[in-house]
């Protein structure tokens, strides 16, 4: 309420709106570009408003693919499978390992914690080479498992769930014990429900993480039918460097961003809450 003068409030709103405009400008342009035909996108200046080719482009891209590539529909499906496998796989493994680290007093617990932490905190980008060789040896190239397992095994989520579990009061465990709950019951009946905000937040983060993976899929997939939508964009831009078919590229880009954007916005409340509360 302090100094809630109309003028200063108006300035704040103005700055925010300008910020939003700048941040969303590229996304708007994507939509615009996806709604024009290719000829219009080579004329300078480019349009700032919507054209009438949106559904035409959509049909072409989703059904037939661009320039003989796989139809985007298949890639969307691949991306979805990959994102979901990564999100669920990572959440279950992380929940269990965080549970073990926080609640079981086995020897060298801290050593384990740091080992997991250090080895698995490493982004895939850093351990590409060794990981690639293992996956190749196991014959998992061009499979969903090969796509996801190396990405599932990382400690980021373990670490966040550890933080969540640490904030659960000890009395809860004691009360559950008195009520006769075993370790697994405590985990299912108490810990999971209590941690559902952070699980939701992790789901959003990991879904996006999985969906947006680029370098790893690029390495392990050679089969066109295993490609993900994110990868395809790069391919399109590369294949068409001379005369970029922007209308198709931007349509694909739009399709590639819709699922993660929907997830983030749909689960915004839980996501923001989980993110800012568990990470700090």
């Amino acid at each position, binding site marked *: *309420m*302090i*100094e*809630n003068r109309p003028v200063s409030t108006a300035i704040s709103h103005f700055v925010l709106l300008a910020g939003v405009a700048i941040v969303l400008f590229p996304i708007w342009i994507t939509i615009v570009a996806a709604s024009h035909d290719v000829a219009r996108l080579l004329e300078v200046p480019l349009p700032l408003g919507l054209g009438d080719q949106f559904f035409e482009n959509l049909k072409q891209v989703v059904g037939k693919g661009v320039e003989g590539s796989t139809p985007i529909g298949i890639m969307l499906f691949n991306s979805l499978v990959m994102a979901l496998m990564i999100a669920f796989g990572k959440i279950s493994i992380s929940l269990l390992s965080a549970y073990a680290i926080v609640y079981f007093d086995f020897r060298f617990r801290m050593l384990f914690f740091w080992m997991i932490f250090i080895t698995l905190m490493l982004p895939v980008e850093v351990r590409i080479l060794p990981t690639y060789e293992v996956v190749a040896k196991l014959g998992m190239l061009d499979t969903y498992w090969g796509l996801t397992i190396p990405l599932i095994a990382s400690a980021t989520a373990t670490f966040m769930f550890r933080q969540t579990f640490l904030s659960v009061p000890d009395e809860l465990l004691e009360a559950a014990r008195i009520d006769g709950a075993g370790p697994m019951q405590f985990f299912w009946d108490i810990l999971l429900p209590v941690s559902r905000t952070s699980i939701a937040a992790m789901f959003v983060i990991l879904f996006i993480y999985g969906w947006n993976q680029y370098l790893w899929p690029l390495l392990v997939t050679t089969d066109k039918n295993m490609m993900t939508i994110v990868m395809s964009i790069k391919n399109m831009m590369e294949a068409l460097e001379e005369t970029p078919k922007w209308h198709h590229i931007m349509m694909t880009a739009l399709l590639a961003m819709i699922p993660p954007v929907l997830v983030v916005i749909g689960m915004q409340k839980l996501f923001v809450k989980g993110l800012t509360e568990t990470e700090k």
Partner: protein
Amino acid sequence: MSDSSTKGSSQNPSHIRLKGVEKIYPNGYKAIHGIDMEIEEGEFVVLVGPSGCGKSTLLRMVAGLEDITHGEVYIAGRKVNDLEPSQRDIAMVFQNYALYPHMTVYKNMAYGLKNLGTPKDEIDKRVNEVAKLLELEELLNRRPKQLSGGQRQRVAMGRAIVRKPTAFLFDEPLSNLDAKLRVQMRLVIKNLQARLGTTTLYVTHDQVEAMTMADRLIVLKDGIAEQIGTPMELYDRPETQFVAGFIGSPAMNFIEADLSDDGNTLQFGDTKLPLKEKLSNQTSKITFGFRPEHVTLSDSGAMSLQVNLVEHLGAESIIHAKLGDSPITLRLNGHIDAKNGDTLKVDIDADRYHFFDKNAGIRI
């Protein structure tokens, strides 16, 4: 700020003046209903009421932290409605103290003066003076989190005092302290205020705190000022049943009673109580009130009570009893030997009857 300041100062000697102050939130909820009051220079006025009664809102309106929807607020003769908190020349002590966690005690106290452009040596002098007054000298280089609750409280007060403001505003400053410290700090604040002679508006929900500290108090309920007066006025002559029940501990006893047609006797249950003076009211439905401490045991007593429980406090005994279905509390000196099921006969001090209209809750 200068043109609006002329009006109030000339004809009004009071230091803080509220004129028809109202607060209506954007959602239409009316938190404060037309409060009028005048606080004299150097007076210690306590705003008291149950939680949610609007007392903090009213204080914050005086401080400038909440907009004033209708009415006017004057401080030292200046209309302050449109002034920023910093321009009102007031200091405030918050319930959670609101000490800046990243600054030392010294910097916390110096912050306001620094913002006003006070010269460094003057700041230094004043902070040290106040630190001495509040026995904070040893703590000047500590951070708030290294202090105990009582110490933080004193720093919060020091921060207010150091500015030498026209008025102090306190928002439940003692509610985060334990009981013993609270009693101590009550005295400290009261003494300091008397010594500095600074006009003070103090908010609390604790009626004991209110009674012991205030020169005058305002009892607030649902945003309405039920009564304004000195502690003894409120105790002796509460204007509403709410005030009667709120002030005093244990609380006043209330009995639903019928007034006889001639207005000379009051009847409740089997008891007939003759009145000293004729009472007249629109209806015969009366709420009769008396304080637990205004009764005497007597074998010929007009009322017979069934004892339920006796609390022995040593110097006095609190007796919880029943008259018919109405619960009655008595507070008697010394050790009263009574137990559950006993019958006690009592008389009520006839000068200390209180009567309220049953429906309106207003004193008759």
